[in-house]
């Protein structure tokens, strides 16, 4: 699906400063070599299975299914991975690749902190230096993850520019990369940025849909009717969708963060409210004003609080292969609480956006239908923020 310049339809590309061009070319060449290298793949499988705990479970949520009274619901439990989210899949792949390329230092951006924690973890494991850029606003929302990163030996740099959230952390990590390239790999956390990142990150996350497919065939002897995942940049969603793209009968549904509603300015629902633009190295949909100034987006979820979306999602939207829906803060918080009470699983507030849409969809489908929700991460990190949202001040 990727052409040589990393295009997904009109989206993608490499809109970055000349200073970085040789770095992304070197990365692409290394990736093209190692992705077919049996030794690399054996090492990565070992890390996935023995270190991260893959394959992750495909769990039949029987109580939720019964309660909603419609389609049979399965949860893909990426929250059970080491470090508590799908982010580790991509990070182990990129860290191993960086190491093979002779890099000794990883830098990363993080929103909710899950990607930062995963990067710090991989850096610790592989004996690499690690610097994580995180919006100052997010360091407050996700103080626990800041501590985890520091504990893992990473330096966390609070980013104070702009809205002091994920987009500013990406900008600052890109700036840092232009100043120090020789020993440093930018471990981008989502299926975004300049080519080859959207392809590399997708390939490492595609293990999710590969497993869903195998597990579903084993358990049900058929494919699911729908796969639902939350979308910020879109890495867990593309990972969940990828091996089903050719299976036209499987609905692929991405859930964006509507924040306080797509009819307000306090939203991060890029496909619902944005238009095509060029930013952070890629052409895709972005929330922006009429002069192309990037909009200050908002979501209760720090991980979905991003004004763009990965170029492959933009393409899947354009060709109508995937559907994108917007879920408000309130709907996500209700789903967060619902899954905790109903199944004893506290999902990340990001993943709760996918759960929220499933709660709307499942009752409209017949009982012989099957839907899979990817629970991209666990919700421990969100408990204080959700308590605050509900008017309860707890001290961590």
């Amino acid at each position, binding site marked *: 699906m990727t052409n040589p310049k990393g295009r997904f339809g009109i989206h993608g590309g*490499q809109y970055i400063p000349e200073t970085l*061009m040789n770095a992304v070319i070197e990365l692409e060449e290394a990736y093209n070599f190692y992705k077919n290298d049996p030794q690399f793949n054996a090492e990565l499988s070992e890390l996935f299975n023995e270190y991260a705990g893959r394959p992750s479970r495909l769990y039949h949520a029987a109580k939720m299914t019964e309660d909603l009274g419609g389609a049979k619901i399965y949860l893909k439990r990426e929250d059970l991975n080491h470090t508590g989210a799908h982010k580790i899949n991509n990070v182990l792949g990129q860290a191993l690749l960086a190491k093979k390329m002779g890099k000794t230092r990883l830098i990363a951006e993080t929103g909710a902190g899950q990607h930062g924690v995963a990067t710090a973890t991989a850096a610790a494991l592989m004996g690499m230096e690690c610097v994580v850029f995180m919006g100052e606003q997010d360091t407050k929302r996700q103080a626990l993850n800041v501590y985890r990163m520091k504990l893992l030996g990473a330096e966390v740099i609070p980013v104070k*520019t702009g809205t002091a959230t994920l987009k500013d952390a990406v900008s600052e990590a890109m700036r840092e990369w232009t100043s120090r390239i020789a020993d440093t790999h930018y471990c981008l956390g989502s299926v975004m940025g300049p080519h080859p990142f959207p392809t590399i990150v997708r390939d490492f996350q595609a293990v999710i849909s590969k497993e869903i497919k195998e597990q579903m065939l084993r358990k049900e002897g058929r494919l699911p009717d729908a796969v639902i995942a939350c979308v910020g940049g879109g890495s867990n969603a593309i990972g969940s969708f990828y091996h089903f793209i050719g299976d036209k009968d499987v609905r692929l549904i991405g859930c964006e963060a509507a924040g306080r509603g797509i009819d307000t300015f306090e939203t991060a629902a890029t496909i619902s409210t944005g238009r095509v633009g060029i930013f952070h190295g890629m052409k895709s949909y972005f929330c*922006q004003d009429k002069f192309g100034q990037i909009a200050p987006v908002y979501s209760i979820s720090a991980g979905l609080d991003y004004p763009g979306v990965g170029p492959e999602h933009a393409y899947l939207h354009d060709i109508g292969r995937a559907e994108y829906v917007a879920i408000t803060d309130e709907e996500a918080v209700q789903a967060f609480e619902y899954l905790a009470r109903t199944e004893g699983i506290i999902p990340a507030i990001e993943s709760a956006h996918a759960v929220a849409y499933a709660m709307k969809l499942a009752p409209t489908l017949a009982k012989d239908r099957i839907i899979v929700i990817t629970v991209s991460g666990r919700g421990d990190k969100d408990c204080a923020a959700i308590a605050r949202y509900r008017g309860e001040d707890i001290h961590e």
Partner: protein
Amino acid sequence: MSKIANAFAGGKAFIPFITCGDPDMETTAAVVRAAVANGADLIELGIPFSDPTAEGPVIQGANLRALEGGATTDRVFELVKDLRRDVSVPMVFMTYANVVFSYGAEKFISACGEIGIDGLILPDLPFEEKEEFLPLCHEYGVDLISLIAPTSENRIAMIAREAEGFIYLVSSLGVTGMRSEIKTDLASIVAVIRENTTIPCAIGFGISTPEQARKMAVISDGAIVGSAIIRLLEQHGKDAPSYVGEYVKSMKDAISE
């Protein structure tokens, strides 16, 4: 022949960068006129962008102040129309790809041609993506300026061969901003550029003192200065034009020695 060549016809060129609308358009107009009166050969006008990923803190601040002050692409076009009543030196825009794309590339680039903008510098549009805007630039007579960086290495010849207007040689790794020392071996990069093109080459990023500008001009065709000028605007606001004029004179004198 590109009008930009005029800027380099009389010896080494001094190229100031000014963010439009920082702190307001009247000040920008006065600063440009002061720079021209004191020897600036080519003016690089920044159209502010919300997320300028190639800029250091000083120019990021200018972008923010300009946007908070109500600067828009349309108002920048009005500013240029006003300047063109009496300013004849070449002028180029420096902005980000989304500012052009989002406005409508044809609408933006044709406007550039109409109001007298001679070139376009887009730091997030590398050689591989230049087809995005190049055909329109050719159609409306606007040079799409190429950047070459310390990391360009094997790419220098390829970029230089197709370059137009002038080449913007980035002096250092990292983002814009003042530097106490420039360590890149720029002379050897310029040598490769010279083997591949006859268009002029000016050096930017990190230059703030007359001595630095002089050194850069010795090995190339000119010096580009941004952050040091923005710093004057930051300090003096609406009173900045006379300070910028004085500064431009000191820099132009240094490179003309």
